[in-house]
């Protein structure tokens, strides 16, 4: 087993190496991205619209495989396996079992609250009622939604508010105990209170897993993340401690973007 560490002695959970990505129409959306994701840390991706943040994030759970013609080049190494998860021999389903994702718009399934959270477990063949009950409760508590829904677990998930739906999607992703969670602008469709809820939740979650989050909200990145990466036109401009990026970035472009002179 290999464990890589950075200067703060933090463990690398996953890492992209010279990652290029091409959409089916030939657009190159990622150019030679080298970026580590540290264990029990939140890494934030920032950058102007269209710079490739979502594309990068979605490479981590092989979402691009769903559409024909998309092409990856380079590697994303997952530790401690030390395996390139983009390898053709790696089963994307296995990858998604360990790296889960929360989308920009809440996308609950047309099922009850309970079944939404149980979905990932059922997909993994778990049908024992007792185990499901326990894990669903644990996941809903983990997503701080339990108190609001414990009396109506059989209600349709669509009856929840937007913020509750998003926490349900987090619970759904949590239930399967992933090692990494990917968030693509998880709060952009939510009001400030729901946003604060989810931010607090993420800070809690990182104790158990690693988080990679795309956000358009600079304050959000500064508030919750440990590391921040600034992307521009498919390239990684700068990656460093969040503090450093927001107080003393080493690149002029990063500074311009953060101070609002750009974008």
């Amino acid at each position, binding site marked *: 087993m290999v464990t890589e560490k950075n200067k703060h002695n933090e463990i690398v959970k996953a890492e992209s190496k010279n990652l290029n990505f091409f959409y089916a129409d030939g657009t190159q959306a990622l150019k030679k991205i080298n970026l580590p994701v540290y264990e029990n840390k939140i890494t934030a991706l920032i950058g102007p619209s269209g710079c490739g943040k979502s594309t990068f994030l979605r490479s981590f759970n092989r979402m691009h495989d*769903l559409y*024909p013609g998309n092409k990856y080049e380079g590697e994303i190494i997952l530790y401690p396996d030390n395996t390139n998860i983009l390898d053709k021999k790696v089963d994307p389903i296995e990858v998604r079992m360990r790296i889960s994702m929360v*989308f920009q*718009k809440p*996308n609950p399934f*047309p099922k009850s609250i309970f079944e939404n959270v149980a*979905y990932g477990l059922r*997909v993994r063949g778990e049908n024992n009622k007792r185990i499901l009950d326990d894990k669903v409760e644990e996941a809903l508590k983990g997503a701080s939604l339990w108190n609001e829904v414990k009396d109506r677990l059989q209600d349709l998930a669509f009856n929840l508010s937007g913020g509750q739906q998003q926490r349900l*999607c987090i619970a*759904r992703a949590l239930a399967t105990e992933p090692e990494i969670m990917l968030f693509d602008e998880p709060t952009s469709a939510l009001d400030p209170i729901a946003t604060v809820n989810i931010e607090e939740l993420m800070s809690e979650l990182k104790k158990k897993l690693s988080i990679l989050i795309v956000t358009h909200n600079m304050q959000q990145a500064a508030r919750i993340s440990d590391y921040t990466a600034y992307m521009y036109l498919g390239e990684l401009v700068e990656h460093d401690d969040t503090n450093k990026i927001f107080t003393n970035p080493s690149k002029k472009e990063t500074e311009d973007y953060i101070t609002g002179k750009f974008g």
Partner: protein
Amino acid sequence: MSEPIISARLSKDFQRNIMERFIEFALLCSAAFAVFITSAIVYVLVSEAIPFFQHVSIYEFLTDTVWTPNYSIKHYGILPLISGTLTTTFIALLVAVPLGTITAIYLSEFASHKVRETVKPILELLVGVPTVVFGYFALMLVTPLLQKIYPDLTTFNMLGPGIVMGVMIVPYIASLAEDSMRAVPMAMREGAYAMGATRFQTSVRVITPAAISGIVAAYILAISRAVGETMIVAIAAGQQPNFTFNPVESAATITSYIVSVALGDLEHGGIGYQSIFAAGLTLLVMTLLLNILGHMTRKKFAERY
């Protein structure tokens, strides 16, 4: 203070107003025409059925188990025709619902773009095949094949035409169900895949429930289509009103009875002639009930993404 002045640009455009009114009126007319035709059909059916029911009591019509308007000893029990209709419809659905649904799932969730664009038109071609052809197909091909498995099967039976009717309906279900499955937003699919679901799990556990209202609508249409189907059963089921639900026996359905009388030389205005309107009215009520049922199920499963 002076009067508020409405600038010329904000005042109502007379020409546009007239145009809007005209379009609205044209739309109303076409809607009214459809309603008019439907009412006219109901009026004819009812007015021709009334003399029939003056002769035959509704009680007899609904409870007698023999239907022999053309024999010397006349019986006017609609039950044999209803049993024939229901049995053939049931067999057809047994074939069409699974096949149609599986085809829809395959086309929507599994097939590549190229396969889908090839298969769909071919399927839709099946809709264009005249039902007479299907009828002879049932009589000359399917029944003889079934007789190889089950030698006691008579030449005219409900099983063969039922199965063929099912095949005929498959494209209706497949096409409508596929449309509603493809209308499920991609975000829902991505959500399922992101949980580590396989294609099969995604399509069965997420996409199908999400599209259920359209799928149920497809089934309802299929039932109406089967209940109303005439030629296949008229040709291959034997036109023998028979109060039975046994698919290996011959039978007549409401529509096949109507067509046999309409093609025959029964005198206009006679009781036998009037009986087809009573039968037609029964069919109308059955389809109406089905549509109401369909409407209710659709409401219950109202689509929500």
